[in-house]
C-alpha cells in the first residue's frame, strides 16, 4: 500500500473516516451475532453445537494471542498455562459444588488423603471462582511479565521462556495428583452453577455463553487495537527502546497486553471445562500451547478477526479431517502451518485485503481495522524487510 494511496483512501482527517467504517463494523458484528446466536443453534445437532462451543473457547485464547503476539510482538508459547489456570479453577469449583457443602471431591477420596486442601476451600464460592478465573491468570501473567519485560527479555528469549513455563506447569500438575488429579485431570462434572450439565437445554445455554463471551472479547480487542494503547503496543513491538525515551514504560505496555491475553485464555479455559467436561495436563502443555498459535497464524495474527476465524477453522478441520484420515491429519496440520507461515505471513486475512478490493461495497465480515494497512497486517517486520521479501514483479 503506498502512503499516497493510504492518505487518499482515508481522506486525511482521522476524525472523519469513522462513520462509513463504523457501519461496516457494526454490520460485521451483526452478521456474526446472527450466525452464532440464530443460525448455529437452529441448524446444528446438540453434539455439533457442543463442538462449536468448544471451538469458541479455543478461539478466545486465539483472540488474546492475536493481541499479544500480532500486535505486541510477544510470541507466547505458553498460553496453555493461563488456559489451564482458568480451566482448573473452574473445574475445582465444579468438583466442590458436586461434592456439596463440606464434601470432598471423589478423586481426592481415591488418590488423596480424603481431605480438601486449604487452598481449594475458597473455590467453593461461585463468586470467588469467577473472580479468580480472571484474576489468577492476570496476576501470574503480570508477575511473570514484569519480571521478564522490565529486564528486556523479549523475542525468541520470551518465546522459549514461555514454552518452558508451559512445560513446567504441565509437569507440576501431573506431579501433584492428590490435589490436581494428575494426568487424569479433573472431570465428571455434574452441574454448572446449579444447572444440570446433562440437560441439553443447559448445554445450549453454555454454548450461548461461550459465543457471547467470544464476541465480547473481539469487541474489547477491537477497542484496544484502535485505541492509543493499540498504537503504543505496535510502537513497543517495533522500537521498544525508543518508546522508553518518550517517557513510557514499555514493560507496562507489554504487561497489559500480555495480561489481557492471559485473562482471555483463562476465561476460555474456564468455559471449556463445563462444555467439554474435562481439563487435564494434556490441555495445557507445550503441544496444546503451540496448537493455539496455529489458528492465529493461519487466520492472520495482527488482524482482529483473523485469529478467531483461524482458530474456528482449524478446530473444525481437525475434528472433521481427523475423523476421516487420522494420520493424514498430522501431515495436513504440519503442511498448513508451513505453507501459511512461510508463504502467507499475513495469514488468510491478508488474502482478504485482495478480495476486499473486488468486493467493494459489500458488507465486510472480516473487518480489518483501517489503522492496519495491508503492510502492518503482516509480520512484525520492519518495512524494508516486508517489501524486499514481498512482491517484486
Amino acid at each position, binding site marked *: 500500500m503506498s502512503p499516497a494511496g493510504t492518505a487518499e483512501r482515508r481522506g486525511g482527517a482521522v476524525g472523519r473516516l469513522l462513520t462509513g467504517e463504523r457501519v461496516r463494523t457494526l454490520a460485521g458484528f451483526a452478521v456474526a451475532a446472527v450466525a452464532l446466536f440464530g443460525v448455529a443453534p437452529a441448524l446444528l445437532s446438540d453434539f455439533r453445537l457442543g463442538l462449536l462451543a468448544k471451538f469458541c473457547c479455543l478461539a478466545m485464547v486465539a483472540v488474546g494471542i492475536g493481541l499479544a503476539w500480532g500486535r505486541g*510482538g510477544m*510470541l507466547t*508459547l505458553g498460553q496453555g498455562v493461563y488456559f489451564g489456570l482458568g480451566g482448573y479453577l473452574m473445574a475445582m469449583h465444579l468438583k466442590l459444588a458436586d461434592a456439596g457443602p463440606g464434601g470432598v471431591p471423589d478423586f481426592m477420596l481415591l488418590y488423596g488423603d480424603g481431605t480438601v486442601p486449604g487452598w481449594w476451600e475458597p473455590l467453593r464460592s461461585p463468586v470467588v471462582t469467577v473472580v479468580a478465573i480472571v484474576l489468577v491468570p492476570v496476576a501470574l501473567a503480570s508477575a*511473570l511479565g514484569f*519480571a*521478564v519485560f522490565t*529486564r*528486556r*527479555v523479549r*523475542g*525468541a*528469549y520470551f*518465546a*522459549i*521462556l514461555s*514454552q*518452558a*513455563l508451559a*512445560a*513446567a506447569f504441565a*509437569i*507440576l500438575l*501431573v*506431579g501433584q495428583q492428590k490435589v490436581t488429579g494428575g494426568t487424569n485431570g479433573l472431570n465428571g462434572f455434574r452441574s454448572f452453577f446449579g444447572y444440570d450439565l446433562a440437560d441439553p437445554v443447559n448445554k445450549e445455554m453454555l454454548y450461548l455463553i461461550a459465543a457471547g463471551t467470544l464476541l465480547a472479547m473481539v469487541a474489547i480487542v477491537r477497542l484496544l487495537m484502535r485505541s492509543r494503547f493499540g498504537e503504543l503496543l505496535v510502537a513497543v513491538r517495533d*522500537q521498544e*527502546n*525508543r518508546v522508553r525515551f518518550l517517557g513510557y514504560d514499555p514493560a507496562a505496555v507489554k504487561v497489559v497486553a500480555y495480561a489481557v491475553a492471559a485473562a482471555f485464555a483463562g476465561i476460555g479455559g474456564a468455559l471449556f471445562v463445563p462444555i467439554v467436561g474435562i481439563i487435564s495436563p494434556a490441555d495445557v502443555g*507445550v503441544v496444546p500451547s*503451540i496448537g493455539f*498459535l496455529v489458528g492465529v*497464524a493461519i487466520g492472520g495474527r495482527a488482524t482482529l478477526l483473523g485469529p478467531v476465524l483461524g482458530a474456528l477453522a482449524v478446530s473444525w478441520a481437525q475434528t472433521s479431517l481427523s475423523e476421516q484420515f487420522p*494420520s493424514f491429519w*498430522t*501431515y495436513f*496440520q*504440519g*503442511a*498448513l*502451518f*508451513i505453507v501459511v*507461515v*512461510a508463504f502467507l*505471513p499475513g495469514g488468510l486475512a491478508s488474502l482478504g485485503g485482495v478480495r476486499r478490493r473486488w468486493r467493494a461495497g459489500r458488507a465486510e465480515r472480516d473487518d480489518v481495522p483501517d489503522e492496519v494497512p495491508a503492510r502492518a497486517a503482516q*509480520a*512484525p*517486520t520492519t518495512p524494508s*524487510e516486508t517489501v*524486499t*521479501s514481498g512482491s517484486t514483479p
Partner: protein
Amino acid sequence: MDALFSQLFAGLSLGSVLLLAALGLALTFGQMGVINMAHGEFMMAGAYTAYVVQSLIADAGVSLLVSLVVGFLVGGLLGLVLEVTLVSRMYRRPLDTLLVTWGVALVLQQAARDIFGAPNVDVRAPAWLSGAVELFGLGVPRTRLFILLVAVVCVTALALVLKLTPLGRRIRATVQNRDLAETSGISTRATDRLTFFVGSGIAGVAGVALTLLGSIGPTLGTAYIVDAFLVVVAGGIGQLKGTVIAAFSLGLLQATFEYSTTASIAKVLLFVVIVAFLQVRPQGLVSLRTRSLA
C-alpha cells in the same frame, strides 16, 4: 560421599547430553537466529540412522562409529533441505521460523512413524561400551563417558571453527547484518546453508549418541527440544562458551534437584531458577552488548 560423586557425574553426564542437544542449536538458533523446532526431529533422524546402519553393519562398535559420521550427514542434509526450501526465505522474521519448523517437526515425526512403525526400535551398544569403569572408586557407565567425549570433541571443534577460521567470521557476520555481509563480498546464501548444515549435522550426531541412553522412537526429539533451547537461552544467544557453561550447570542443578526432590519437581525448580537467573542476566550468562538501539 559415593552418592555425591555419582551424582556429580550424573550431573556432568546430563550436562553433556544437554550440550549435545543444544550445540547444533547454538549454531542455528544462537548464531543464525532460526528457532528450529525440528531440531529434535533431526536428532531423531540421527538415531534412526544408527538403527539403519546397525542393520547393515553387524559389528556394533563399527556401526556406532560409522553412524556418528552418517548421522552427521543425514542430520545435515535434512537441515540443508529445510534451509533451502523454507528457512532461507524467513531470515527477516526469525520468530516465524519457530512456527514453520514446528510444522516440519510434525511432518517428520509422522513420517518416521510411517516409515519405521510406531513402536520404538533398538540399537545395541558395542561390547566395549557396556558396563562401567572404575573412576575414583566409583562405577561410571562407559556409555556416559563416551557421550561426554563426543560432546567435548564436537564443542571444541565448533569453537575453533567459529573463533579462528574465516568461515566462523563469515557465519557471525552474516547473522548480524545480511545486507552488509552480502555487500562485503560474502555469499550469505552459501554461508547460511553451510551453517545450517553443520548445526543440523550436530543434531544428527547427538541423535546417534543418544541411542546409547534411551529409546529410539518418533518422539525422541520432543523430549529434548525445550531443554535444549533453554540451555542456549540461559547461556546467552550466540555464545558458545555460555552454552557450554549453561549445559553443565543445568545438568548439575537438575541432578541435584532430582536427588533431593523428585524428577517432576526438579523440572519445575529448574525453570524457576532460569527465570530468576534471567532477572540477573537478561541476556544470558555470556552476552555481548552493543550500543545499537534494537
